[in-house]
């Protein structure tokens, strides 16, 4: 098993043995450049690793490895808006960062970028195509950025029907397509906006993360800027499920891969972006959000860090492992569904992303 760790100063890999108790650190990769995402696509047999590396000098690029992360090569191309469409435009689009990489399980890899846009490659990164109907959506001129920028940071592809895709954009909300990207529509029904006079607008939500269990794929869980939500119909309708949490603010959300009603969030105080009362805890529901309980045995009680939106992961083992990375460079993990936690790594740079490659 491997844990891929993207940080603001390069990427790392933690290699774990079958017990998930012993981990060895490799890295940093990518010359210390900001790495917002590292993922492995195992759909073709031998895993292909991708990393979203946002160099502060030469622009955002994609690196790829086909030898287990031992060596990395920059892909021929990276997601870019079509230059001909930008010519002479006052508000010309240019990719500043890649935030999210998402293999669709069939050989395609999607990329979400800032300023908000969706791209995909079908040839392992040799070329990238734009999802034009989304990137040039008629409402685009009115989209507002979140504090992290106007970024498309979440991509969810339906495991059984890859034409159904949901993306999360801050601060625009959930946008979805059911026909492989020909048309996109807003899917924010019942999701609250606390920073608008209209509490439930069609769009303008600051969605932070969406996750699902592939075996119950129509059910989505969403951590919003304010509120945690569940959808039973792949985003058509949402129900707020945060009663009992110490804060409805947080960034990541993760669904246990073997128990689809078990979900983890990491609540933060809204303004300070640190754990409520400094007591760091995952919060877990075992019944799809009806009840939540803290899961903090082994986690620090005086902590003033954050867990960023991409910095939580779950594995596919029977007693589902849960992993989280902090903004101060620690990785904590549990191999018993959150009952107890251990520290896997410390003194890393600010952690932007975690991703698991199961055995």
């Amino acid at each position: 098993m491997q844990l891929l760790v993207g940080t603001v100063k390069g990427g790392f890999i933690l290699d774990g043995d079958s017990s998930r108790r012993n981990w060895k650190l490799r890295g940093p990769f990518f010359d210390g450049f900001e790495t917002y995402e590292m993922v492995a696509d195992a759909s073709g047999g031998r895993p292909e690793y991708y990393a979203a590396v946002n160099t502060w000098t030469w622009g955002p690029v994609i690196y790829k490895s086909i030898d287990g992360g031992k060596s990395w090569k920059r892909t021929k191309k990276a997601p870019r808006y079509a230059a001909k469409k930008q010519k002479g435009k006052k508000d010309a689009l240019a990719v500043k960062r890649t935030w999210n990489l998402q293999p669709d399980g069939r050989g395609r890899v999607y990329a979400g970028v800032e300023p908000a846009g969706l791209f995909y490659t079908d040839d392992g990164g040799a070329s990238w195509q734009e999802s034009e109907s989304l990137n040039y959506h008629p409402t685009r001129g009115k989209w507002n950025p979140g504090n992290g920028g106007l970024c498309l940071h979440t991509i969810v592809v339906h495991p059984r029907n890859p034409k159904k895709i949901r993306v999360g954009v801050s601060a625009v909300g959930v946008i979805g397509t059911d026909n492989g990207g020909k048309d996109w529509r807003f899917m924010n029904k019942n999701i609250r906006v606390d920073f608008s006079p209209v509490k439930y607008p069609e769009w303008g939500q600051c969605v932070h993360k969406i996750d699902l269990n592939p075996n119950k794929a129509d059910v989505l869980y969403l951590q919003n800027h304010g509120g945690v939500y569940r959808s039973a119909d792949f985003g058509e309708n949402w129900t707020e499920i945060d009663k009992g949490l110490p804060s409805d603010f947080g960034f990541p959300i993760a669904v246990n891969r073997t128990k689809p009603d078990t979900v983890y969030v990491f609540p933060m105080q809204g303004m300070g972006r640190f754990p409520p009362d400094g007591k760091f805890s995952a919060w877990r529901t075992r019944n799809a959000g009806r009840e939540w309980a803290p899961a903090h045995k082994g986690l620090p009680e005086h902590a003033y860090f954050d867990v960023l939106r991409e910095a939580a992961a779950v594995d596919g083992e029977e007693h589902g492992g849960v992993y989280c990375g902090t903004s101060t460079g620690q990785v904590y993990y549990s191999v018993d569904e959150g009952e107890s936690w251990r520290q896997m790594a410390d003194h890393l740079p600010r952690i932007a992303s975690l991703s698991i490659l199961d055995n």
Partner: protein
Amino acid sequence: MPVKVHVTNMLVRHLDTEPDFQVQARSLGELLEVKDQDVEGFRDSICDEAGKVRVYVNVFVNGENVAREDEALSYPLEEGDEVYILASVAGGAR
């Protein structure tokens, strides 16, 4: 006589290219296009898809930084000109 070009070691590492080379080009934009044919990603590393030189890249032509000019890619080059492509001093926030 072509234009002489020198690039920072950071870019040499990033693109696996040589630090010093010569190019036949009549403008900065043409220089990037020509070199991009040899070293894929060269143009994209220097300027974005909107045609702007990237914020933390400086391009000196005979000692003058032209990177922030409105139409930097149109900046004319002549035989014998010396071009330096460097990363600016940045990174304090990291």
